[in-house]
């Protein structure tokens, strides 16, 4: 069975500080991977997707970047956090058009 893990579970960071969020998928070879951002109580905004190692496509510009260093790993990062980056970050993988989401990372920027 496939499992998806995100780290950390939660972060409290200062404005202007760097950020790195991670996502690992086990049990699925060469998955399509996605990053989403969800404001508190809001909808999901897709940020990035990746079909293969080393290739990441940006969907929306939010002063964030993503990388896929391994087949089963997806990283979201920024060098300088903004207040507007606060929210819930979700990683997902897909099969047969169905997306399966990780548990998420809750980010608070102060």
């Amino acid at each position: 069975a496939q499992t998806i893990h995100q780290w950390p579970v939660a972060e409290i960071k200062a404005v202007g500080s760097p950020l790195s969020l991670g996502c690992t998928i086990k049990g699925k070879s060469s998955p399509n991977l996605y990053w989403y951002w969800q404001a508190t109580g809001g909808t999901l905004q897709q940020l990035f997707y990746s079909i293969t190692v080393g290739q990441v496509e940006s969907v929306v510009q939010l002063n964030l970047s993503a990388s896929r260093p391994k087949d089963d790993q997806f990283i979201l990062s920024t060098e300088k956090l903004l207040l507007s980056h606060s929210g819930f970050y979700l990683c997902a993988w897909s099969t047969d058009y169905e997306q399966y989401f990780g548990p998420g990372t809750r980010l608070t920027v102060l």
Partner: protein
Amino acid sequence: AQSVDQPDAHVTLSEGASLELRCSYSYSAAPYLFWYVQYPGQSLQFLLKYITGDTVVKGTKGFEAEFRKSNSSFNLKKSPAHWSDSAKYFCALENTGYQNFYFGKGTSLTVIP
């Protein structure tokens, strides 16, 4: 441009009643449509999808949805509703073949026991 609209921010009904959550979309091509559920404090779970074929699709947890091209809708249904169905439901559309997904604002469902 593609978009998804869920016109009802909140829906409240009694346990045992039938539920129908509305979703309409705007997309120039044949849409791929989805419903997801989010329980409080949790991530999203896949419920069902429409890709092609039968316009009524069945999913997990006893839900089904009907795709209506005539009015660009993809409403989620379940009968009877159970208190455990209380959650936030998101309708989504994929920009077919481009790996871009658009989510509606969600409908918060409360089922009163």
